[in-house]
């Protein structure tokens, strides 16, 4: 198997088809969320759509999030007078059915509330906002704990910029790498970096693109500046300019290049998930007496 074939197999392994259990679950939750919000804000008729990696075609099995945007009309106050009010009211509307994690800056992460799925992460971020005008293109979203409480953005521009970049495959693999190395670089910043660094390498094969990306990271001199295509002058992505994040990114990129040189691509992305997974797990059942077993201590 060539390097390119191997990487394409990894991509295939990570892809989530519309028939996959994960996507079906996401769609079901999206329906529920839509129902809840349209009922709660009946008079306002919010716009509810997919965003994030699902819309951008960069979703990977190991790290997928479904962004469900919930945008109100620019002159609508049914969901709240201020962006903060809208954010909190949308959160409240969802708390009956979901455990709402409101620690993210501009979105509400949904987790399970029942006993069977308590705190299970559904990989859904609801992003409340309000259109800036009646054209329904740009939108204001609320930012918690940020210098500016209001962020202007444009979902369509983001989706188009990534989806139509011609680099969605390499973006997906870089996301996988970011996830496995726990680099904690924001996905959106990473996507923009890939596009920024590989603009003139779109015609190269996938393995060469990845190598070029990591080489470019290693060779970075000074701060990386990436611009938000929805609001280049207005939106500040400089949180990525923190020194420690960039140093870690550079050192990890270097060690990745070393791994490829010394051991090949499988050192980076590992073996493919086996189709015999179910059979192997069944075999484990019969051997369970030799393993340590989970327990629940008192006062847990």
């Amino acid at each position, binding site marked *: 198997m060539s390097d390119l074939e191997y990487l394409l197999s990894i991509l295939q392994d990570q892809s989530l088809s519309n028939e996959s259990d994960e996507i079906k679950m996401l769609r079901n939750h999206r329906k529920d969320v839509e129902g809840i919000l349209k009922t709660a804000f009946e008079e306002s008729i919010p716009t509810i759509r997919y965003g994030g990696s699902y819309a951008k075609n960069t979703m990977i099995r190991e790290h997928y999030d479904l962004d469900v945007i919930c945008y109100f009309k620019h002159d609508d106050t049914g969901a709240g007078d201020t962006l903060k009010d809208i954010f909190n009211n949308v959160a409240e509307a969802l708390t009956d059915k979901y455990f709402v994690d409101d620690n993210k800056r501009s979105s509400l992460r949904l987790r399970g509330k029942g006993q069977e799925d308590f705190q299970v992460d559904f990989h859904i971020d609801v992003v409340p906002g309000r259109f800036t005008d009646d054209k329904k293109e740009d939108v204001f979203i609320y930012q918690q704990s940020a210098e500016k409480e209001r962020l202007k953005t444009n979902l369509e521009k983001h989706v188009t910029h990534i989806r139509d970049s011609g680099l969605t495959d390499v973006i997906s693999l870089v996301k996988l790498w970011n996830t496995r190395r726990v680099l904690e670089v924001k996905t959106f910043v990473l996507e923009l970096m890939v596009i920024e660094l590989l603009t003139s390498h779109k015609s190269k094969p996938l393995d060469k693109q990845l190598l070029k990306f990591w080489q470019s990271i290693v060779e970075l001199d000074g701060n990386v500046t990436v611009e938000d295509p929805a609001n280049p002058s207005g939106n500040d992505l400089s949180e990525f300019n923190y020194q420690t994040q960039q140093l870690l990114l550079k050192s990890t990129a270097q060690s990745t290049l070393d791994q490829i040189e010394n051991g090949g691509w499988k050192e980076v992305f590992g*073996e493919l998930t086996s189709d015999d997974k179910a059979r192997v797990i069944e075999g484990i059942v019969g051997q369970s007496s030799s*393993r*340590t077993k*989970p327990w629940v201590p008192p006062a847990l």
Partner: protein
Amino acid sequence: MGTPSTVISKKLQKVLGDITEDYPDLRITRTTESVEITGSLPIIVSGTVLDRFLIEIQVDPSYPRKIPRVYELGGRIPKSLHRHTSPKTGEACVCLIDQWSWVASKCPTVLEFINGPVKDFFLWQLCFIQYGKDRCGAWAHERNGRLEFYQAILDTDDPGTIRKFLLHLSEPKYKANWLCYCGSGRKACKCHKSSIISFRSKISPQVARSALQDIKELIRASK
């Protein structure tokens, strides 16, 4: 807490083992209070990667005396008792305290802890995910789990025998002249001496004392 650092001393490296060699997707960070290991852990059986879990392991400097804290960060495992994860803290209960005392001698490095109890915990979770129920046999909750453990290692169902056994293990020193726990009526030194000495090397007196308390409570409750 102190500034996290990725600099690992030789002494600490010895305790950790070559984790990043076996698991290149795990990252080690040292703080003043602990060592944190975070990243994507592949669950490999017979060369097959069954799945991966995003984890964090907090290793106390007193390892292996204190079992490391393990957390599943990806939100795939419900935080519930029947999945052996604390609803309050999210901590995964990878191992019975007595079983940990038993295996800790076989896990001198954290790498062996990951290859042993941590891997076993996630294998159990994968079984649960596949079958929708416990087919790999977790220990019962709380005290009953401890009773099950001693029943298994002594091959007896009798809580009274287990209580006497734990009395032997609870003492700071081996009591050769005490009656053997098995009920033979003979002294320990003439009966299950080697067995008691062997178990004492695996289960610390502190762990045995707390197990003894729990077993006594269970006996009391059953009357």
